[in-house]
């Protein structure tokens, strides 16, 4: 069983190992590789990859533009639909989106590497010119408040600025970027790409960012509604689901989202403590991100435990394989029953095995125990309705998130929402970007009417 003092330590690795472990997980394509890969695209009619992209990027066109030696044009094709196309190229689960739909997947089981090609084109633009390719329309004199400077908010702000509106982004944190800056795994967007992209988005002009302004704490929705011509809510999910077990507030019981944020902001990863034995509870992207990053920080044993089978996991098959190849053990069909505590510190988790009976999950009564120095909760995040403060009663929620229509309009007049805080489908960066753009177009129509 666990030792009396938990094995939590910093600097488990040789100094140069950190850089290696947290460098680009998918090295970018070189010019030659990009041309060879671009050549594989069939330029499909009504291409399935475009349909599978939440932001509907004209993928065959941007790939053709790479092929003809027009990478800047290619980047503009991408960014015209998805201003965060650079980040999406890095973090999109392409294996369940565009690349799953690629006809080459059906033809030979090897889709065109759309994500890497998208990264190639956007990198060329960022590296060669770095210039904002989209001009602003003449000023409209309209002002829009955007709550949250994450993917949804940045996307909405950029599109609104393009249309000539003035935008103020209120962001709760020190830096804009949202989960791009604080959430996703470090090896997916190294070298400060998230901030570079924020600067790129803001370079269109007409967007002001108010840092450290959280809805419900520093600003109120009712005030924004009065002060601005329109409001877009894109503040994400601030709440973290609890295990509802005794001891989860004790040292050693960690919230995965907070830990990843610390990791992303750490100037020196060797100063970040990590457990020798790590247990991650959950089966989504965040669970994989925290499990793999723990392993790469030097944890000796990392076990992910998920209550259902692999096909139900929120993490894609690729992500599951990534965890496995990084030495993470994934255990299915078990749910946490009890946190083991020693000397005021979490020392392990007792799990109950589960089974599905007619679609319902039941505990079988059989248990096992995993000793742990750190236990990560990664079982989802939630909207904190209180943050909507006085409006919480009026804005209609659906499944714990803000209900929106096709145009991302909420139940409140003049208030739109998108990204993870809105009930629009999958919680993906690319889906948030789509929400932001769709909402911005709707706002623009409303303000132009």
């Amino acid at each position, binding site marked *: 069983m666990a030792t009396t003092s938990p094995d939590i330590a910093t600097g488990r690795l040789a100094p140069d190992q950190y850089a290696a472990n947290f460098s680009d997980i998918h090295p970018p394509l070189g010019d030659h590789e990009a*041309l060879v890969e671009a*050549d594989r695209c*069939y*330029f*499909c*009619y009504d*291409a399935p990859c475009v349909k599978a992209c939440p932001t509907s990027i004209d993928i065959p066109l941007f790939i053709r533009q790479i092929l003809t030696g027009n990478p800047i044009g290619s980047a503009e094709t991408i960014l015209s639909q998805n201003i965060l196309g650079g980040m999406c190229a890095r973090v999109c689960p392409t294996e369940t989106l565009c690349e799953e739909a690629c*006809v*080459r997947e059906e*033809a030979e089981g090897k889709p065109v590497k759309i994500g890497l090609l998208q990264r190639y084109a956007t990198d060329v633009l960022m590296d060669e010119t770095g210039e904002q390719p989209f001009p602003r329309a003449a000023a409209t004199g309209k002002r829009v408040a955007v709550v949250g400077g994450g993917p949804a908010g940045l996307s909405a702000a950029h599109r609104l600025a393009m249309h000539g509106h003035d935008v103020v982004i209120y962001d709760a944190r020190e830096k804009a970027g949202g989960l791009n800056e604080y959430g996703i795994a470090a090896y997916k967007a190294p070298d400060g790409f998230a901030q570079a992209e924020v600067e790129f988005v803001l370079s269109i002009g007409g967007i002001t960012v108010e840092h450290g302004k959280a809805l419900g704490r520093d600003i109120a929705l009712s005030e924004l509604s009065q002060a601005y011509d329109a409001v877009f809510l894109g503040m994400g999910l601030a709440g973290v689901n609890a295990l509802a077990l005794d001891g989860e507030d004790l040292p050693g019981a960690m919230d995965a989202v907070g830990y990843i944020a610390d990791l992303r902001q750490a100037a020196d990863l060797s100063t970040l403590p990590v457990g020798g034995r790590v247990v991650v509870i959950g089966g989504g992207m965040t669970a994989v991100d925290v499990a793999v990053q723990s392993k790469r920080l030097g944890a000796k044993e990392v076990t992910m435990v998920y209550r259902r089978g692999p096909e139900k996991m929120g993490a894609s098959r690729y992500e599951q394989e990534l965890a496995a190849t990084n030495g993470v053990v994934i255990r299915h069909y078990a749910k946490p029953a009890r946190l083991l505590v020693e000397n005021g510190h979490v020392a392990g988790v007792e799990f109950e095995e589960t089974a599905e009976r007619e679609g319902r999950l039941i505990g079988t009564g059989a248990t096992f125990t995993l000793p742990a120095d750190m236990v990560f909760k990664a079982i989802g995040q939630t909207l904190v309705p209180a943050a909507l403060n006085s409006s919480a009663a009026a804005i209609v929620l659906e499944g714990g998130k803000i209900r929106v229509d096709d145009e991302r309009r909420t139940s409140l007049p003049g208030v739109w929402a998108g990204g993870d805080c809105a009930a629009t489908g999958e919680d993906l960066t690319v889906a948030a970007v789509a929400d932001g753009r769709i909402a911005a177009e709707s706002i623009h129509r409303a303000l132009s009417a």
Partner: protein
Amino acid sequence: MANLASNFVGIKSPNPFWLASAPPTDKAYNVVRAFKEGWGGVVWKTLGTDPPVVNVSGPRYGAIHAGDRRLIGLNNIELITDRPLEINLREIKEVKRDWPDRALVVSLMVPCEEHYWKDILAKVEDTGCDGVELNFGCPHGMSERGMGAAVGQVPEYVEMVTRWCKQHTRMPVIVKLTPNISDVRQPARAAHRGGADAVSLINTVNSIIGVDIDTFSPLPSIDGKGSHGGYCGPAVKPIALNMTAEIARDRETRGLPISGIGGITTWRDAVEFMALGAGNVQVCTAAMTYGFRIVKDMITGLSEYMDRHGFTSVDEITGRAVGNVTDWQYLNLNYVAKAKIDQDLCIKCGRCHIACEDTSHQAITAMVDGKRHFEVIDAECVGCNLCVNVCPVENCITMEEMVGGVDPRTGIAVTGDYANWTTHPNNPMAKPAVVVEPAE
């Protein structure tokens, strides 16, 4: 293993694959390497008079590429051999002595005066080589000096020089034709009249391979300037096939041996040229792209093919398709074919649909019952074959002949009877009733 032995106008070689007169056959070193890999013969790079020509010291070649930089067309501004005649003759003699079973033909190009030809023929004959090929084809450089294509474009000159050569040598004379002419049958007939043992074709096609769109120099660029060059490689194959067939089915030149040249890259290409009348084939660009080793596949591929068809001699392939080349007016207008998409092979790229929808006959669906589904609408399909050509999956779309029934597009019964344009009611020149297939 079929017997690939070839006897082309009395010149024997272990297989019908020769290297064409070009850079790969400029020196003994290259030719010996080719023979070691198994090439049946070579046509030595064109000899001229001394002092030898000089070549540019900048780029001589330009190329166009298909996907993945696969070279499909090459152009060059290289001239005939730039080595002294004496050295070439000595090497030819040595190589022929060392490789007696291989064909060694020497390409020639000298000014259009009889004594030049008489003189060089005597020297070449002394090497013991198997024959000569008259280079009436090079479209660049030499043509400015009244040689090469400048001769090949004037049938009277072709006939005259051929006649001189036949008078002054006992060796077989092959006349190499230029494609840079409106009717290739004219110089072929002229060569025939002059007594040529054979023609070889095609030489390269006059071309500018490209333009540097930053410096605006034609390519290949010599100090910012470019000149037209000779185009060859897979891209010219269809032009060469047609010219081969035109000569093979012409009343005057029918039966005149043809050495097929033009983009031959595989044994399949070779079989096509032979089927259209070539007795053997010559290769250059494929060797320049991949090296001499490709001949191994050519040899085994041809052998397998011959075994499959029960051919015991390469001569059995020669001309097999010539009778099937006809004029458009004799094509059977009652033949009806419809495209058919194999749904199991279809990867749903939709290229057939958009090609048909945008540019042809709106005969392929994109959506059926709300699902992405590509299917031919027989009532619209004219059988044009465009969908087959643009489909990325081999054999996914095929053209199926209609046998019996009614063509849903025209409402006309498919009877299987032959009828062509010469008797069609829409033809103002239609001849009454009797249907005549051309004799050739």
